[in-house]
């Protein structure tokens, strides 16, 4: 196969590890090509696209490919361009547009509009001088510095992987991939994509009473405050609408993970009749058809549910062979200060699949990206950049009509004795008020403005 991208078909198959398994299977099953629309050997002609160069202009400087247009990838792309205008930056995402997960809890209960959460990748790229490519990444060839996507192959000088998280259903005893699919669709967690959010909103709006089950995963899941915030905002909705509903909040942790005073007080003072909080509930199995979640000690039947399972670094990291097998959240094997893959200073991993234990959330990703962009620009120019801490600014809505919120900001430091990162200075405001509610909207507005418009 003659290929414009300049590598052999065999090498591609080896590198991606994807077609290696499927192509022979397709060939074996093949029917007559003219009847099936399949090409030579039963492989659909569209597969040839995978082996071409992606339709991108020739790079005008060192090309930096950023995979994943979430909070981390968007911020990376912008600040890479700011740090070094000569970088030719391409941002790749499988989605066509952006829907914010932060602030989605207030949206679920009608406090803010979907317009506020939705933004265009085209605007971000246009306003910040980089290119956006809608494509799904299939694999990497780090030796030849190439990324394989369903829109073709992209060569890179630097590669930033910000693929976010996947759910790790195995950790709640759901091991069969088909069962996992079913569970993900029936009772989505709402921490990965917009369809989950839309489904959860319908569930809330159509709920007429009974037990609504919510879960808090264990481990370093995405957005520590969000599951507790969701319990509060949903309870507020049921309360304001006078519904005979009970929220059963099964927490896999021993206690509320963050802003404990604020949430515990909200549960008892505002939602004593609505929220039943059960800590130390280690979920061991889920019966989707039977609408039952089980722990070692009890079975919990529910009328409807939002099941947020533990999370892991995106599977593409494992498939690319850069996952640290010892990390509980299956995160990347990277340098904790400089973010590059161990032994490869051309590939960086940021955002929620990072290896460091920083709180997973939008503001952490944005502030981290400002630093990592400097590191990469510095690497290109042979300049050292001093490590600095990301910041985690987190708002949680406690009540609605009007929205009242609590907040927390924290920084991190490296503990030389424990050889790990720890919380540094922290400031929590655990008494909910309207000022906090307005400030949480300001928080998101500022970050959207930063990532998309200016």
């Amino acid at each position, binding site marked *: 196969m003659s290929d414009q991208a300049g590598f052999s078909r065999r090498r591609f198959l080896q590198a991606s590890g994807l077609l290696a398994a499927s192509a022979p299977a397709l060939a074996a099953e093949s029917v007559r090509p003219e009847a099936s629309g399949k090409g030579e050997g039963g492989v659909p002609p569209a597969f040839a696209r995978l082996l071409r160069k992606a339709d991108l202009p020739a790079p005008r400087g060192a090309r930096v490919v950023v995979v994943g247009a979430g909070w981390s990838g968007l911020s990376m792309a912008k600040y890479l361009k700011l740090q070094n205008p000569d970088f030719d930056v391409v941002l790749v995402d499988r989605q066509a547009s952006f829907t914010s997960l932060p602030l989605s809890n207030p949206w679920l209960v009608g406090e803010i509009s979907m317009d506020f959460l939705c933004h265009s990748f085209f605007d971000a790229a246009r306003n910040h001088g980089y290119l956006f490519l809608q494509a799904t990444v299939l694999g990497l060839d780090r030796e030849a510095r190439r990324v394989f996507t369903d829109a073709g192959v992209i060569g890179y000088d630097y590669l930033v992987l910000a693929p976010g998280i996947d759910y790790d259903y195995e950790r709640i005893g759901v091991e069969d991939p088909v069962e996992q699919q079913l569970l993900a669709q029936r009772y989505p967690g709402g921490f990965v994509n917009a369809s989950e959010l839309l489904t959860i909103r319908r569930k809330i709006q159509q709920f007429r009473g009974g037990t609504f089950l919510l879960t808090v995963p264990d481990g370093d899941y995405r957005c520590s405050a969000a599951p507790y915030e969701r319990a509060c905002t949903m309870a507020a909705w049921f309360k304001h609408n006078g519904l005979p509903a009970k929220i059963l909040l099964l927490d896999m942790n021993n206690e509320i993970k963050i802003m404990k005073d604020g949430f515990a007080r909200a549960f008892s003072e505002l939602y004593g009749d609505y929220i039943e909080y059960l800590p130390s509930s280690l979920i061991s199995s889920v019966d989707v058809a039977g609408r039952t979640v089980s722990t070692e000690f009890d079975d919990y039947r529910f009328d409807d549910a939002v099941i947020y399972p533990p999370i892991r670094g995106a599977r593409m990291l494992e498939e690319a062979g850069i996952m640290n097998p010892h990390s509980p959240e299956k995160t990347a094997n990277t340098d904790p200060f400089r973010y590059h893959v161990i032994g490869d200073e051309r590939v960086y991993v940021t955002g929620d699949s990072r290896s460091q234990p920083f709180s997973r959330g939008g503001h952490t990703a944005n502030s981290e990206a400002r630093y990592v962009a400097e590191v990469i620009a510095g690497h290109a120019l042979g300049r050292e950049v001093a490590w600095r801490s990301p910041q985690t600014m987190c708002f949680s809505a406690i009540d609605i009509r009007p929205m009242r919120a609590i907040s927390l900001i924290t920084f991190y430091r490296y503990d030389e004795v424990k050889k790990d990162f720890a919380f540094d200075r922290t400031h929590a*405001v655990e008494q909910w008020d309207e000022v906090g509610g307005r*400030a949480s909207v300001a928080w998101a507005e500022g970050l959207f*403005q930063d990532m998309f418009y200016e």
Partner: protein
Amino acid sequence: MKGRFFLLLSGLLLLSGAWADAPAKMKIVLEFQPDPLNGRKVFDVCARCHMPEAWGNEDGTYPQLAGQHATVLLRQLMEIRTGQRANALMRPFVQERTLGGYQNLVDVVAYISRLPMDPAYIRGPWSEGTPEYDKGRQIYTAHCAACHGPEGEGNAQGAVPRLQGQHYPYTRRQAIAIKRGQRRADLAMQAVVSQLDEHELELALNYVSQLEVPKTDLAPTPNWRNPDFK
């Protein structure tokens, strides 16, 4: 027909008159009596990011606000509110809907300016006795001291920032941003930064970062915590 023509003509005359002779700029001067007690309440919003001490941080991502002239703080708030000073993340927080009207702005800057400063402010890399320090002193004295003061004390009346006690990574980042046209500044400041290269700016800012802040303006220790937040 005749009447219609006349109307049209007079419309054109009015239009051209407006173009030729734009109204002169007008200034509105408003006076407010600062109320630091209310300022403490307003400061709740600021402290959610700037922390209760408003000391900034050592990497310069936040400035030391404590002890800064109230007029300087007010000017920054106004310029960030209107977008004259680009700061996407902070702008929504200082809008009227979040922070309140002019009285609240005046109150909060009065409060912040009276907070004791972080005694462990970050100094530049070249201490007294190094050639870089001496070079920085020369540059500072020749180019900066006229407005920012010989001790980096700034000027409250002229809303000129106090540099003394400010974290070096912050002043460095801001000066370079002004030089690269990423942060707006008044004409005098623009003129100065255009005459100096980035390293000369670093040297001048290193010098001012080594200057001592009067003890009375500092918190007793770096472990001091704002008692208003207990």
